[in-house]
């Protein structure tokens, strides 16, 4: 391993020091011919404009309205999502897990930050931080309390620790009072957290 003697931070100006360090690294890697800044711009732009939880929301809304799609999604989510032309492409090993009245699913990565990027975008800070990663597998009910979510005490909570290259998408339960709604209307109710398992979809008529 390399030595870490240059890893200490100076409290008064950590951000600017880090920023300078990042700029210098980008210059060096560019000068060495390893990277092209325009390609970095394109990567950032893709995350900022195209890849986000709206992709997952479309998949969930489709599953709520199309039983054949839901069945296919639960059998092989990568394949099923691949049949939806309007959703961004998705990599292998995506697994959709269904919430039911008796079972609530929650996804975590205790070891780092594995998350279904193509479905949900980049993970929020809390997902990558120690409180969630440490507690989700030991006391998920108390974690849900931090999100203002409570479940009946007899509901099974299944926590999926993303320890390999499999990625998990929670299929939340469709809210009551949405009979006859279109896929697009339903997609508006699907929150990012409901697809991680730390929240529920919005209720019809709730402020957005």
């Amino acid at each position, binding site marked *: *391993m390399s030595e870490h003697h240059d890893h200490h931070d100076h409290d008064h100006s950590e951000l600017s020091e880090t920023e300078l360090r990042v700029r210098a*690294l980008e210059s060096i890697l560019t000068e060495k011919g390893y990277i092209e800044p325009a390609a970095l711009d*394109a990567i950032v732009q893709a995350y900022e404009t195209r890849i986000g939880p709206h992709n997952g929301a479309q998949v969930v809304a489709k599953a709520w309205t199309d039983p054949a799609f839901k069945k296919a999604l639960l059998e092989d989510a990568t394949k099923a999502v691949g049949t939806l032309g309007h959703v961004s492409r998705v990599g292998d090993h995506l697994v959709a897990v269904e919430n039911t009245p008796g079972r609530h699913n929650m996804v975590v990565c205790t070891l780092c930050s594995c998350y279904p990027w193509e479905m949900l975008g980049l993970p*929020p800070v*809390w997902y990558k931080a120690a409180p969630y990663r440490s507690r989700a597998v030991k006391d998920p009910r108390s974690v849900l309390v931090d999100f203002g979510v409570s479940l009946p005490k007899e509901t099974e909570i299944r926590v*999926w620790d993303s320890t390999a290259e499999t990625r998990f998408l929670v299929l939340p339960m469709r809210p009551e009072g949405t009979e006859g709604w279109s896929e697009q209307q339903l997609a508006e109710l699907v929150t990012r957290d409901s697809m991680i398992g730390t929240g529920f979809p919005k209720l019809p008529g709730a402020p957005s």
Partner: protein
Amino acid sequence: MNGVHDMGGMDGFGKVEPEANEPMFHELWESRVLAMVRAMGAAGAFNIDASRFYREALPPHVYLSSSYYKKWLLGLEDLLLDKGYLAREDIAAGHAVKPAKPLAPGKLSVSDVERTMVRGKFGRPAPAPAKFKAGDRVRARNIHPTTHTRLPRYVRGHLGVVERDHGCHVFPDTAANDAGENPQWLYTVVFDGRELWGPGSDPTIKVSIDAFEPYLEPA
């Protein structure tokens, strides 16, 4: 390695604090770090397992006190230094002063960016039949490798049940050390909460990990 990154079951980190209307990046440099890691990986400087290992190998106090993308930056620098793509002289000068080391497949161009926006493929042909099937009782091995592993400490030594078989995948424990893809069967293994956290814990909890076959023994 038994590092501080292996956080499952630890106490004392406090409440989860979701940020309302969280921006995608809190600082511009974070987006550059993300993109540099993706671009250098795509260029062939390292695989995803090595990049994870270098973040895990940061000293514990640095790991715990650095923001997420700061850890990515520090891990990236260490990795490129160790693999010879970057020299201390380059960093000191703030410019490339040492010659570049050839990379394959090489620089990621703008026209190839789209390819990197879909995750890589980790499934591989099976070198041997699977030892376990859904429904089998297994025990997570009590192993403590000092190198990269994806077997979290909190399940080691505990009994679980195989629920799904995901086929054969690249084995992170060897891929991270340039010791080859060494494909292994991968299973979802479910543990009862009381098995992991004791008889007094919440009886409604079940926790699964995705476990490579070498992490498991029959039970």
